[in-house]
Structure formats: structure tokens, C-alpha cells
């Protein structure tokens, strides 16, 4: 390793703002109170009629009023993914105490992940095209059919002009965005990068996920989201947007902001898996965790908490638990493991919301419970029932996707 290399790594990347539009609340106060209290946002879906489906539950954002965050002029051009992202980005900037000015706006960027984007808008556009022909399609819909619309809209509404990118990779879309954003701060291409993920719930997805046999209750039993539980029987869909604000440690110090935590490193990996199947071999997860630990220059024993990817699905939860059992085997002090998807459902690019939650966990030294978990599939230190209070020095955010893609990020306390 040469000197330049160390300089690059030496840039300490910290989280100084969180913003979220989630089924458990909009903005951090309500979100963190309800999350730590073990509340569950899963309920009967109100946005559309589910009577023709076997499943009826979802975690919906029901009290989001975009007008409170977005100018009327820009709002009318936005679909729901864009308005949620713009609102979350505004909340994250506010939380970080950053005001966009002529002087800083070229150094503020956004890197967003979305698994499915605004497929609804594409379906609507395609519907008119196929039913009525090319002359009848609505050009107003077009800008929202591209997946980079949310990041574009957020930049227009909020006025920042730095690095702007949208990535997608199914269930690791947001984690991939977070990792890229960390690199951009390390590279020095921006002073502040907003990063996270957005996905929304719609009847079309619900239908598709039903057909792909993903939704609870797959066994015909009781419909519920039970991450890591023996009785789990499929996922429950969620939605929302979570965005964190990253900057360098020096920048936060200069501004006099106490960061929530540091993102110390990350690991990226994949394993050969059919594009629509969840991986059933823990090898890819183990390899990616080891890359993340190496990148963060820590050991497995330094990890106190894991924000898991488990969503109540048969294959994912089993393979993830098995991977942790192997990685942390023999350690006297096992890390606490939680999956907040028990409360929030699976929103695919959930990594944004989970990154916000983890940052708040690091700040308050509290790990929220895995809602729904009663009979764990393995004897690991799952947090179930009630939250746990414990000093967290290092924690990992897990990203696992069908198709065999993995992104693990290491969050570290930086108040020491």
C-alpha cells in the first residue's frame, strides 16, 4: 500500500443527518420513538382493494403530505417515489443543519437506490400505448418512468448540483448507493452526499409478488411478517424512503456537528444464483462480511450489533442466520441481531430506512426488537420482544438480494 492509498482510506466518513418517510413515521422523532418501542406498522392495506388476493397486509405510509416539504410547482411533476425521496432528502439536510447556497450547492450530491422505481407510471404509459396507440400517450408521464427521476426531482427542488447518481440492484439497491456515496466522500468529489433508497407499494407489485409466490401466508396459515422465526411464511411488503447525509469527519468538526456515527467500510460481493431466486448458500454472505470487516480494519469480535436483511422469507432468513452462526461462531460475546422488517415490512430498497435506524441506534445505544420473532430458527442473540440497551462500538448493515448480490456496511461509533 502506498501513501496515497492511506490518505484515501484516512478520510473518515460520518453520518450527520437522517431523513425518512416511513410507515413508522415521517421524520426521526416519531420514527425512532415507535421503532424502539417495538411498534408494528403492518396493517390491512388501504391504498387498494386486496379482496382478490390471499394476502391483505402491508406496511404503508399513510400520513405523508408532500405539500409540507415540496413546492407546488415541482410537486405536480412528481410521482410518489419522487415526492417521498425529495421529502426525505429535505429532512436529512435539515437534520444535518445544511442550507443549500450558491456557495455550496455544487459540492452537495445525491446517490439513491431504487429496486423498482416508478413501475406504476411505466405500466400506465404502456397501457395507453397498447390500448389507444402512440398518438394518445401522455408525455407528462415520461420523465417519471426513468429510475433516476427521484434523485433528479430532489436536486431540482432542493437546488444541489453535485454528483447525482441512481443505482438499482434489487434488494441491495440502497446499500449499493450507500457504499458508492462513502467512496465519493473519500474521493473528495463532494462535501456532502445524500444517500439511501426509495420504493413504493402498489397494487401492481402486490399482484406480481403474489404471482412470484413471495407474500405471506405462503403456507395458507396466519398472515404475518416473522423474520428469523420458525413459523415465518413469506414476506409482507412495505414502502418508504430513508436518506442519510454523509460528509467527512473534518467537515463535521469544522461545522461543529456531532455525527451519529461513522461508516467505516464496506464489502461488495456476489454468488452465482438464479436471477429470481434467493441464495441458499451462506458462502457469498460470509465472503462479503469478511471483505467489509477487512475494509473497516476490524474483526468479527468487534461487532456488537447487526441490522439484518431477513424479511420473513423461507430461504433468505435461513441462509442469513446460518451465515452469522458461522462467522461469529466461538465468540464469547455474540452480536445482537435485529431485523426491523418485522415492523416495516420488506420495501426492497429498505437499506435507506435501515441505515437511518442504525445511525439512530448508534447515537442512542439502543437496538430495536425484531417484531414478530418468537421462535428463533437458530440460537443467536436475536433482539426480540423488547429493545436492548447496550454500548455499540461497531455494527453492520446487511444487504442481501435475490440474484445473489451482497453489500455489507460497517457503522462505527465516533464519540470515543
Amino acid at each position, binding site marked *: 500500500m*502506498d501513501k*496515497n492509498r492511506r490518505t*484515501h482510506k484516512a478520510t473518515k466518513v460520518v453520518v450527520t443527518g437522517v431523513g425518512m418517510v416511513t410507515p413508522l413515521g415521517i421524520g426521526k422523532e416519531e420514527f425512532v420513538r415507535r421503532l424502539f418501542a417495538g411498534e408494528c406498522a403492518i396493517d390491512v392495506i388501504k391504498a387498494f382493494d386486496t379482496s382478490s388476493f390471499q394476502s391483505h397486509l402491508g406496511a404503508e405510509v399513510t400520513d405523508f403530505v408532500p405539500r409540507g416539504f415540496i413546492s407546488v410547482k415541482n410537486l405536480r411533476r412528481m410521482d410518489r417515489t419522487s415526492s417521498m425521496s425529495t421529502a426525505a432528502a429535505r429532512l436529512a439536510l435539515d437534520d444535518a443543519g445544511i442550507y443549500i447556497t450558491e456557495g455550496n*450547492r*455544487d459540492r452537495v*450530491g445525491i446517490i439513491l437506490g*431504487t*429496486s*423498482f*422505481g416508478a413501475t406504476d407510471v411505466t*405500466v400506465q*404509459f*404502456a*397501457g395507453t*400505448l*397498447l*390500448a389507444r396507440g*402512440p*398518438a394518445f400517450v401522455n*408525455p407528462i408521464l*415520461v*420523465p417519471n*418512468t*426513468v*429510475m*433516476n*427521476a427521484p*434523485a*433528479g*426531482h430532489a*436536486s*431540482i427542488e*432542493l*437546488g444541489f*448540483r453535485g*454528483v*447525482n*447518481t*441512481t*443505482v*438499482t*440492484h*434489487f434488494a441491495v*439497491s440502497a446499500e449499493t448507493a450507500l457504499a458508492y456515496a462513502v467512496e465519493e466522500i*473519500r*474521493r*473528495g*468529489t463532494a462535501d456532502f452526499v445524500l444517500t439511501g433508497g426509495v420504493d413504493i407499494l402498489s397494487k401492481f407489485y402486490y*399482484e*406480481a409478488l403474489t404471482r*412470484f409466490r413471495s407474500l405471506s401466508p405462503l403456507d395458507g396459515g396466519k398472515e404475518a411478517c416473522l423474520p428469523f422465526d420458525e413459523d415465518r411464511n413469506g414476506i409482507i411488503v412495505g414502502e418508504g424512503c430513508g436518506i442519510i447525509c454523509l460528509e467527512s469527519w473534518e467537515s463535521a468538526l469544522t461545522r461543529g456537528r456531532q455525527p451519529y456515527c461513522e461508516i467505516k467500510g464496506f464489502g*461488495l*460481493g*456476489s454468488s*452465482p*444464483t438464479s*436471477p429470481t431466486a434467493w441464495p441458499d448458500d451462506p458462502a*457469498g454472505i460470509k465472503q462479503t462480511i469478511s471483505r467489509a470487516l477487512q475494509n473497516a480494519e476490524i474483526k468479527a469480535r468487534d461487532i456488537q450489533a447487526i441490522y439484518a436483511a431477513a424479511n420473513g422469507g423461507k430461504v433468505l432468513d435461513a441462509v442469513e442466520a446460518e451465515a452469522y452462526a458461522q462467522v461469529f461462531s466461538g465468540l464469547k460475546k455474540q452480536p445482537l441481531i435485529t431485523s426491523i422488517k418485522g415492523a416495516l415490512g420488506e420495501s426492497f430498497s429498505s437499506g435507506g430506512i435501515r441505515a437511518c435506524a442504525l445511525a439512530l441506534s448508534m447515537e442512542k445505544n439502543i437496538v430495536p426488537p425484531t417484531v414478530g420473532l418468537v421462535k428463533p430458527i437458530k440460537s443467536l442473540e436475536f433482539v426480540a420482544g423488547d429493545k436492548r440497551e447496550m454500548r455499540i462500538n461497531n455494527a453492520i448493515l446487511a444487504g442481501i438480494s435475490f*440474484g*445473489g448480490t451482497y453489500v455489507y456496511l460497517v457503522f462505527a461509533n465516533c464519540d470515543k
Partner: protein
Amino acid sequence: MNKSKRIVITGLGTLNAIANNIPEFVQALQEGFCGIEAIDLFDTTGFRSKNGGQVKNFNVRDYIPQDYSIKRMSRADMLSCAATLEALRDAGLYPLPDLIKEKMGVAVGGGSGGLWEAENFYGEMLKKGVRKARFSKLSSVYCASSADRIASSLGLMGPKTTFMTACSAGATAIGYARDLIVNDYASVMIAGGVEPMCRITYAAFNALKSVDPDVCRPFDKDRNGLSLGEAAAIMVLEPLDVALNRGAKIYGEILGYGVTCDSFHMTAPDEQASGAVRSMRAALKDSGLSIDNIDYINAHGTATAVNDVMETKAIKEVFGKRAYLIPVSSTKSMHAHTLGAAGALEGIVCVLSLQNGFIPPTINYRDEDPLCDLDYVTDGVRYTLLRTALSNSFAFGGNNTTIIFGQYAEGGVGNG
């Protein structure tokens, strides 16, 4: 940034409107061949335009061996897999040695993904109702599917990412892939972009009235919009020392890239050209080059009224008087605008120009526009030695990416 680690291009692969492989592409670029003609992939009745840059004679099994499953692959998946195999063979890496797979990854810029196949689904949904529609047709609709197919069929275990910044996605993917190797997250990367021709995308650009009914005429006084095309464009990237050690053919080097945002309008470029100016400057800064080092500019040059004036203005602002001395061409006049693949395809154009010592022309040009007064290479190919080439990609959402390629020379650009 670790400037001492140089990343080179050792393999190329493409299918596009003017070539089904790299040798054909070199020839077509030099001949100034126009691949924009009547589309036969779908019925264009009712559209403002009938033309497009379609890949011709694509018999998938001529490109992908029989033992390689293409079940449920979209046209985008097949085109990208075919280009990947060409690039790997070109790099002398096919079949892939097992040792390389562990840290070899994929970064792809996507666009329409499996929308062409999904259209059949939407049609069924409209005709027979959602209950009877075959959702399996949607299994490759999302763009991340292409990277998953490439990685899983080759058995890769490195990072996997898909960029969705519309027309700048391919360029951003290449820049990002370079960074992953520089910072040791990957040892070798397959990077590029893929965009299939599809009726929904075609309808979208027609609805926006941004397509030329005839063929696109970049920088011409009477230019009247873009021509849509399709392509897969893939590069193999690896560290210089690794390439030298294994005696690989070296096409060129990635010297730098920059990503910025207009924060102006979702579909219209900022006429002040601020985003484009900043992205070229960011790429120059990243590469450590001065304006005097740039020998050729491969323009975004879509042939829309606004883009070409804006880009010309941006080039003049960045390069000052030197702008008039640098040849600028838009090869979209030949292979059409390939959206998500454009940045990667035009990256390949730059690399081939550097390696073979030629400047590809802007074809279809007739009359001078007083607002577009640079040297657009409208008089046919020029054979000349080039050291560096800069490629611009500007996208919906105000996403701009500029990437700079250099001819490989032992001591770096300027010392060769």
C-alpha cells in the same frame, strides 16, 4: 485517490446499429456508415418517426454458446451477454480462469431492460385481465437482470451494480468500475451499458417530440431531434500491472471521470450549460490533465435543438480558444442514441480511436448553425495520432457524466 494505480482496458465487445463486433465497428466508424433506418422489430405505424438504430442479424446462438442458458433472458440480457463474451475473448479471459472469478465484478448502465418483453405482459394484462397475464414474462423486466445474468453464468463473486441514470448510465458505470479496482474492491471489472430497442421507450421519446422523423443530424442548422438506437457495449478493465504481467493487449487507459447534476429540469438541459461545464472540469481534475492535453471530444451530440447548442457552449467555456482546435464529433449520427448504453458505446468509440489513430466523423451534416461553430469533423474520418479522448454523456434528470480515456503509454499521457 490512488493515482499510482492505473486502470487499463484490455477487452472490448459490442453489438450496435452499425456493427455486430469490434472489428466491424472500427470499419463502420471509419467509413462513416449510417445504421439509422426503418425499424422492423415492431410496427411503427402512428409514430412521428419510423427510423432507429437497430442491431441487425442478431441470432443469439451465434454469440452465446449452447451450454449457456438463455431461458427467460430479455433482448437486453442477450445483447449484453453476447458483448461480454466478445470482450472476455478479446481480453484473453475466456473461458475465465477460476482464480479471477473471486474478485471479478460487473457494473452495467441500464435503460429499458426487459421492457420489450414486458410489453407482451402488459398487452396480456389489458386483453385478458391481470389474473390471466403471465407474470413470468416480467422476470427480466428490471435492468439489474443483465448484470445478474452475466455474473451468474460466469460464476463471478465480485461487486455487481446497475446504474440507472438514463443516458449517462453507461459512462458512470465505467467510472465507478475503475474506482472499484483502484480501491481494491475488485480485481477485474466487466463494465459498460446495454439498451434494447423497445416500443415503450420509442413511444416515450416520440411523445416528447424529441426524435427526428428522418435521421439525426448532430450540430446541423436544421437538426430536428435524436434517433433512438440500441446497443450493448462492454469493456474489460484491470490494473495496468496485472495486464502487463499476463501480456494482455492494452487498448487504452481510463484517466478520469466526473459526475454532476443540472438541478434545472427533468428533460431539458440547462441552457446555461453549467452542469456540462462542471462535469468536464470534474473529469479533467480527476485525470490531472489540463485542457491542452485533450485531443478529441466525443460529444453527447444528440441532435436536439437545445443539447447541441448547450454542449457547444459548454466546450467553449471549458476549453476557451482551444475549443476551436479540438475535433468534436457525434457518432450518434451513425449508431444513434443508445440511451443507457450510450456512455459505454461512445467510450468504446474513444478507445478504438486512440488505439487505431483516427477521429470518427459526424455524418448526416449539411448546413452550419451559427450557434454550433466548432470543428465537428463533418468531412469524413481523419487519420491522426490521438493521446486522449473526452466523452460527454448528459441525461434526463440533469445527470451529466464526462469520462476521459488515454492512449496507453508507459509513463502516462504526455510521456508516451
